[in-house]
């Protein structure tokens, strides 16, 4: 507890955690300095810091602001947007309906895309792999349709849904290798969007190397 109070903003996370990358990208976008504390998720035992700060879920990322913990990546993003508001770039749009749409697709990413990609990486046998691969590509195509011809999901500006989704791109190489396909062919607009996001300092700084991400996931999912 004493250690956490040294800095005003602390992020407890794991380098390969896509949900945590969102939080770090959001802070970078807002220009907020933070202390990063690595939690080794390859070790099944959680640290005392995580158990103290997130006793209900025992998970990362955790944002600790002025000694108080905020958990769950979507809740953290909204907290960051609300706390560092005036004079900072906004993540969520102003209009309530646009905000609802951004939250809806975030829920889609968290509940559908995330579990589909896990199923794809976990799948055994050619048919199961092919089915889940097609499901994943289908969901990415749905997100591509949401993007349309805009620069970002936030329209002209990099916004909430961009922050939510871009960490998944660090596994695109992994999905391509695992499923033997090219995302550029399946989702050209989404691929362009990834390139556009990677040109941003915040994204470049936070996203890990794609090859390392795939190796990490291979170990986790028991892929040969």
């Amino acid at each position: 507890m004493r250690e956490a109070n040294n800095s005003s903003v602390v992020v407890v996370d794991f380098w390969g955690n896509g949900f945590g990358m969102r939080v770090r990208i959001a802070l970078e976008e807002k220009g907020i300095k933070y202390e990063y504390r690595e939690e080794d998720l390859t070790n099944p035992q959680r640290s005392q810091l995580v158990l103290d700060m997130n006793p209900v879920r025992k998970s990362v990322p955790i944002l600790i602001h002025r000694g108080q913990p905020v958990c769950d990546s979507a809740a953290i993003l909204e907290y960051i947007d609300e706390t560092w508001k005036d004079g900072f770039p906004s993540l969520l749009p102003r209009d309530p309906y646009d905000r609802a749409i951004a939250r809806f697709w975030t829920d889609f990413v968290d509940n559908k895309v995330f579990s589909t990609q896990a199923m794809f990486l976990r799948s055994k046998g050619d048919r199961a792999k092919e089915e889940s691969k097609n499901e994943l590509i289908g969901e990415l195509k749905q997100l591509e349709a949401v993007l349309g011809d805009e620069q970002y999901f936030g329209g002209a500006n990099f916004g909430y849904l961009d922050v939510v989704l871009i960490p998944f791109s660090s596994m695109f190489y992994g999905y391509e290798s695992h499923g033997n396909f090219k995302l550029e062919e399946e989702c050209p607009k989404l691929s362009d969007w990834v390139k556009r996001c990677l040109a941003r300092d915040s994204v470049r700084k936070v996203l890990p190397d794609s090859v390392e991400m795939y190796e990490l996931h291979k170990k986790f999912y028991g892929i040969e």
Partner: protein
Amino acid sequence: MDGEVILLDAYASMFGMRLRIALAEKGVKYEYREENLPKKSPFLFQMNPIHKKVPVLIHNGKPICESLIALQYIDEVWHDKNPLLPSDPYKRAQARLWADFVDQKVHTLGRKTWSAKGEEQEAAKKEFIEALKVLEGELGEKPYFGGEEFGYVDVALIPFYSWFHAYETCGNFKIGTQCPKFVAWTKRSMQRESVSKSLADPEKVYDFFLILKKHFGVE
């Protein structure tokens, strides 16, 4: 002023009840349209093509899906009356987290108390009670999860109370005796007109539940 508000819903849906309560709290006039589950209408598929589920809030022709998202939308549009989320960012984050806990634990485990069998069902019943006890801990001595005022988490959670009779009957266990603080909170919440008018009758929920059970092939 309010615009055209339609709620596509199903009487026994705890998620739909959330929106009925919120709209009542805000004094918003709306048209209620009942979906005849498990048979879904083409209109529902049109309004919610991704999930094909109720409830769907339709404001001036634009659909908002997923109950917690629609709840936040209602709170933001009709922000002048009975705010559901607190204004402090930290307290808002806590409220969002606990509403998510209701979805992840109360709903998922509640469902398992009737859909699972044998040991899995016994485990689900135990975990369900534990989840309610965690919520009791979070409530503490406050009258509501929102503090002095009925709020976001209260709205998210109270509809599940209408399903307790179904869970208890099917799972053969008693919830109230194990969670007295929770029961006290439900009684307090039910005193609000928005809640008492929006919550489905537990007997009718049980009847609907039996249809659902048959539809999913669970005996």
